[in-house]
């Protein structure tokens, strides 16, 4: 059964995307992070330079690499480089 994932964008990623949250439909087998980022970058080219330097977290856990898959109900956080303090 198909579902969706939610992408939460912060700081410059949100501003480049023009949205704080994007809900994206996915197929029954989910979607890899790599595929998701490619689609996002194609649809919202302003995001590309930010995605190249961002960190990604799935349901609150950081991901290494882009092979991880996202499934129905997952949430992906897009973190541009940090600047707190």
């Amino acid at each position, binding site marked *: 059964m198909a579902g969706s994932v*939610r*992408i*939460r*964008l*912060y*700081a*410059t990623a*949100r*501003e*480049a*995307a*023009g*949205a*704080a*949250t*994007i*809900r*994206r439909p996915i197929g029954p087998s989910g979607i890899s992070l790599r595929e998701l980022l490619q*689609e996002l970058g194609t*649809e*919202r080219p*302003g995001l590309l330079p930010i995605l190249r330097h961002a960190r990604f*977290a799935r349901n*609150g856990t950081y991901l290494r690499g882009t092979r991880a898959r996202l499934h129905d109900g997952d949430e992906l*956080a897009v*973190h*541009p*480089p*940090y*600047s*707190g*303090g």
Partner: protein
Amino acid sequence: MEVELTRRRLDVARAYRELEDPESGGVVVFVGRVRPDRSERGTVAALWYEADERMATERFHSLVQQAHVRYQARRVVLWHRLGKLGVGEVSVVVGVAAGHRAEAFRGARFLIEGVKKRVPIWKSDWTPGAPETLRRPAGRSTRGPGPATPRRPRRNLVRPS
């Protein structure tokens, strides 16, 4: 409380009281404040701080735990403010009470460097009169796919300091 991520004003005197410990011979408190940097649009009047609050809080607790273990910190405070802060307002308070000054200094340095490098918090210039729609935090939904509506940038990214 050891860890706070808050929209309320940070009280440095309260932080110092939290660090009170008769066994600690050294207490170091670092206070970060908004400075009036110049940008291409003039002198910065305010900064906007936002965070991935759940992950930032987890990171804060992890940093505090490490400060206790690695630097023998007896008491720790790690507070960060969110939202709009004017020039001169306190954005971050880091404090360590330890047996000796060396551990207190090293622990405080470890914490503030950790905040800057490892905690999902972001600051940017605040620009008055910018579109209110972009001030909302992450949490409201826009359905995808579909092209983003071009919008005027609200703020300038502030380089990490």
